[in-house]
């Protein structure tokens, strides 16, 4: 679908969701950068009730992200979050999962007046970054504090923590066995993860891409809005903390390193989880676990490039090699952290 057709589809989709958007007009369009597999725009629109800003996230037909997304599940969790208190997230106004108005999935949110949290972090002096990581800690705890029994039925609920962790470790083996080449890092990590299982944690809602780039600082500067829920699932809450650690290490500024104790104290206070469960050691362990989904997607993409160099998105597939190498570095560092902490006990 050509992007010039998106405003019309957006208004049609909105009008089907609410009568106030019938006859609405798009006044201004601003693209929002970020996200590899979908396009995001802010639209200023005029409705019969007045002017308002909305955000459109549209997945172009044929776009392939690193991880396969079930847009129905994404839609259900967005609806859930919009209807339930507890997690600061954008309010979904309308969606088109089946492509009735767009040719592929699209989500339309109420635009929130805030700044990208990552910009706030970059504009903050290093010695004050610690205070910002408390906001991140509370945001994570709010996600993980949701009652999983109330989450949408479309979300797969693992039977228990042990089985869930086993299934994640199995993904390392499965990724390797499906690859055309032997991948020693995957096999090594699968064994190591199995031999070094951390204490169990209550299963929870997991954002799946929990990082400061997916947060919007609200005007209050006290809390942040969490966006991009496409990888949300039920799993171990420490997956989000592990992924956050990975991204903080990769994309500056590292707000976790600014004051790790403050972050973990805040998270534990708000989540009620113990120090035995939530600590830098378990985050290091889940840094490895949390990256297998993207790693798996990138491996598949690189393997496809090796088979057919004419495939679409070849540059991205080649670029993924650098990311997988970097993930290997992060995994090995995480192993070192856990091993050193064990030795020091």
């Amino acid at each position, binding site marked *: 679908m050509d992007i010039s057709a998106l405003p019309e589809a957006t208004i049609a989709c909105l009008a089907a969701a609410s009568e106030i958007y019938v006859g609405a007009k798009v006044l201004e369009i601003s693209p929002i950068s970020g996200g590899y597999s979908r396009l995001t725009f802010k639209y200023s629109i005029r409705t019969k009730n007045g002017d308002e800003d909305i955000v459109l996230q549209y997945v172009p037909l044929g776009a392939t992200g690193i991880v396969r997304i079930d847009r129905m599940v994404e839609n259900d969790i967005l609806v859930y979050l919009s209807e339930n208190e507890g997690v600061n997230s954008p309010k979904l106004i309308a969606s088109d999962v089946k492509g009735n108005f767009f040719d592929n999935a699209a989500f339309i949110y109420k635009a929130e007046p805030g700044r990208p949290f990552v910009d706030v972090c970059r504009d903050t002096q290093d010695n004050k970054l610690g205070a910002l990581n408390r906001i991140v800690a509370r945001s994570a705890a709010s996600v993980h504090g949701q009652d999983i029994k109330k989450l949408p039925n479309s979300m797969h609920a693992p039977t228990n923590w042990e089985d869930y962790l086993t299934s994640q470790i199995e993904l390392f083996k499965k990724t*390797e066995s499906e690859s055309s080449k*032997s991948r*020693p*890092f995957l096999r090594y990590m699968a064994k190591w993860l199995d*031999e070094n299982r951390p204490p169990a944690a209550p299963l929870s809602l997991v954002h799946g891409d929990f990082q400061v780039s997916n947060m919007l600082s609200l005007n209050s500067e006290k809390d942040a809005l969490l966006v991009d829920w496409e990888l949300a699932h039920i799993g171990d809450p420490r997956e989000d903390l592990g992924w956050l650690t990975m991204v903080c290490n*990769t994309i500056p500024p590292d707000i976790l390193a600014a004051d790790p104790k403050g972050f973990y104290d805040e998270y534990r206070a708000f989540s009620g989880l113990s120090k035995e469960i939530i600590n830098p050691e378990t985050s290091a362990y889940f840094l490895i676990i949390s990256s297998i989904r993207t790693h798996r997607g990138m491996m598949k993409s690189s393997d496809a490039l090796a088979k057919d160099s004419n495939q679409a998105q070849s540059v*991205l597939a080649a670029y993924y090699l*650098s990311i997988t*190498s970097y993930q*290997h570095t992060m995994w090995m560092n995480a192993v070192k952290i856990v091993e050193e902490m064990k030795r020091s006990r």
Partner: protein
Amino acid sequence: MLISPSISEILRGVTHEMGTSLKQGLNDPVKNAQIDTIIGVLSSCAVRSENEKEWMKKEVTSILSVAKKFVSNDHSSDKISKALKDFDSNESDEKKYQSASNILSLLGDLGSSLGEELASEVWSLMEQRLQHEAYIIGGGFEAAGRN
């Protein structure tokens, strides 16, 4: 055959031009990120073209040494013994490297059952491979369009 400038010199020249004159005046953040992505890919290729063969041989030698030590220490692993025998049937450097990688994977499967000394040697093999990979990506990693 023309071998000068070398592949890596050509790639470095291309990436330099892309990162300077081609990017100058480009205000579109998406296009900027795409160019950064291509520069990242070409820079890695430059390092690989200079070092890949030598590094593969180095890793193969180290892996075989540890695997042979493992077998000679009376450790029982039919899979590793067989993989060592299979290794000799490979002719190209790439196939030898893949075969050695398979042996490294088999050693990794054994985890702590290898015992402290051999486990430490397997860890060193992983670190050797990691060192090469890190060199290819320039030490660290910069997410194109995100920094």
